[in-house]
């Protein structure tokens, strides 16, 4: 063991007084610790406050309408501001139909994209493809709507809807004049908008499936598709369903793009070519023009219903996704 090297003397005279730490006099800032903690708590309580504010505002301001119409509000199909008669069924119908249509289109496409990216894609392509699907999520709703009005709707009017009417018109779903504007347009643009969410969650859920599951199935002599079907998709089922429900939640509340192409007619029709109206759309269109307390209250009651439905749907979806990814919500899905 070498002899000890000389410890160099400190430079300043003040510090040569051994043992006097410059911090000995400093306060320990305990009240600052408590103060800081309280300040952060206050910020966290802001989240609670937001929830409380939403519930309070919606319930108190819709009370008038609730007392006037009761639960029948959601089953009446007569929306007549002139006579102060309000039935919200057409909006409920429109919301449900447009969302279901969107899901029907979006689910196979989203799962297909997710499966391709996680299981089939060459490595160099994974990054760019993921990026592009995420890019779809960044486009604002109003821009989707703009594109839908001037590109999607004419396409539907001149090509897609006549074709559908010719081939599937017998079902009754594709009858009536092909305006382009209507339920089909709304469902289509909604589908495009929710594909990124469903696809991104599906991708996460698929990637969490352990590699040994895949290898086990392959070792039995399965083809790649069989491996995906049996070893991966089956395991990720709960999570994928969760992602789908999350997509549903998004579709239910989507406002601008739908408002711009759904036709804004409070009617219930079987054909997908017909114009319709959703809960979010009637709020967007009529809220700022609502004269009269009952009118406004009826609209806010629709808002309350929309709020409750999306809360329940989203909570359900989160629980299902968490059950698969074990509570790592990773990225905030826009």
């Amino acid at each position, binding site marked *: 063991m070498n002899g000890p090297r000389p410890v160099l003397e400190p430079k300043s005279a003040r510090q040569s007084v051994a043992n006097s730490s410059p911090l000995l006099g400093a306060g320990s800032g305990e009240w600052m610790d408590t103060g800081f903690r309280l300040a952060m708590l206050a910020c966290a309580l802001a989240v609670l406050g937001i929830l409380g504010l939403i519930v309070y*505002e919606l319930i108190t301001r819709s009370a008038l309408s609730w007392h006037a119409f009761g639960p029948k509000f959601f089953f009446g199909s007569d929306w007549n501001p002139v006579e102060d008669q309000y039935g919200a069924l057409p909006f409920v119908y429109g919301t449900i139909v447009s969302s279901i249509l969107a899901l029907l289109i979006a689910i196979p496409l989203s799962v297909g994209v997710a499966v391709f990216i996680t299981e089939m894609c060459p490595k160099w392509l994974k990054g760019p493809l993921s990026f592009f699907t995420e890019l779809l999520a960044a486009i604002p709703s109003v821009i989707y709507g703009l594109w839908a009005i001037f590109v999607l709707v004419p396409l539907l009017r001149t090509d897609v809807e006549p074709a559908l009417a010719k081939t599937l018109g017998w079902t009754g779903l594709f009858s009536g004049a092909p305006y382009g504007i209507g339920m089909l347009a709304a469902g289509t643009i909604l589908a495009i908008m929710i594909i990124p969410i469903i696809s991104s969650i599906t991708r996460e859920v698929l990637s969490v499936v352990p590699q040994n599951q895949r290898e086990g199935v392959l070792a039995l002599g399965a083809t790649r598709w069989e491996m995906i079907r049996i070893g991966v998709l089956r395991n990720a089922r709960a999570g994928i369903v969760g992602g789908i429900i999350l997509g549903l939640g998004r579709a239910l509340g989507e406002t601008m793009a739908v408002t711009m192409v759904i036709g804004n007619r409070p009617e219930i029709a079987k054909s997908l070519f017909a114009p319709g109206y959703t809960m979010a759309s009637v709020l967007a269109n009529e809220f700022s023009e609502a004269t009269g307390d009952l009118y406004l209250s009826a609209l806010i009651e629709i808002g309350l219903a929309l709020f409750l439905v999306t809360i329940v749907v989203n909570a359900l979806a989160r629980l299902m996704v968490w059950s698969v990814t074990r509570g790592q919500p990773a990225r905030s899905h826009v």
Partner: protein
Amino acid sequence: MSEAKVSSAKARSAPPQVSVWRRFVNHLMTGVAVLTVLIVLVPLVAIFGYLLYKGFGSINWAFLTQTPKPVGEPGGGMANAIVGSMFILAIGSLIGVPLGIGAGIYLSEYGRNRFGDAIRFISDVLNGVPSIVIGIVAYGVVVLRQKHFSALAGGFALAIMMIPTIARTTEQMLLLVPQAIREAAYGLGIPRWRATLSITLRTATSGVITGVMLAFARVAGETAPLLFTAFGNQFWNLRLDQPTAALPLQIFTYAISPFDEWHRQAWAGALVLIVLIVGAVAAVRIAVSRGTLAGAR
């Protein structure tokens, strides 16, 4: 499987074959998957393509500096909407970013308990509330009290949307900071509040900023919550208590109008909006990566 037995009975040296049908299905599904990718990419390409095609030609100096002209007159621009958007976003960020980051700090550093779990869950659920509902709430809280539409109401609505998002991303970034770093700070006798701000938060800075930017970009494009809060305005306004123009609102109004001139400007406005959003996110990503790559300062 039976085919495997048959063929191995025939020629013991050959390995069992995967049936033609199964191979066909395998290739078919690969093809289906590729097809879905292509189908999904079509609208993406189409949207950006049309934005460029229809919007680019209409973006000129006049568009960026003038206010809208009366209906029927050609020309005019969206200058007031662009500035109005920035104004409303600034108000929203001023309220939403500090509260959001604070909530995130609480969740990560003090909230590893049932109460924190509740806040976490509520944040996630709030993220799914339709933005039009948020607009209604802001209307009730601000507009009805002030008795007029305003940028403040719009900013308030956007802040409500930003807070849960920023809280969760901040929390996740802070959780990535290793516990060893915090222990080193405590071991030096640094008080907890100081350690949290100057060490833990500082280590997670780039991630936190990215999270804030993503929340910002998301609300920058929102129209619904502004419909009856900021309401829109054909003229300049930078006061807190008057209706204010915003870019997404203007795009919406023009798009649903019957005038070709306004349609043209709607495309231009949309292109400006998407460029601003993508640009802001990219700028922050670059600045942040430069900051961390340059090493410590």
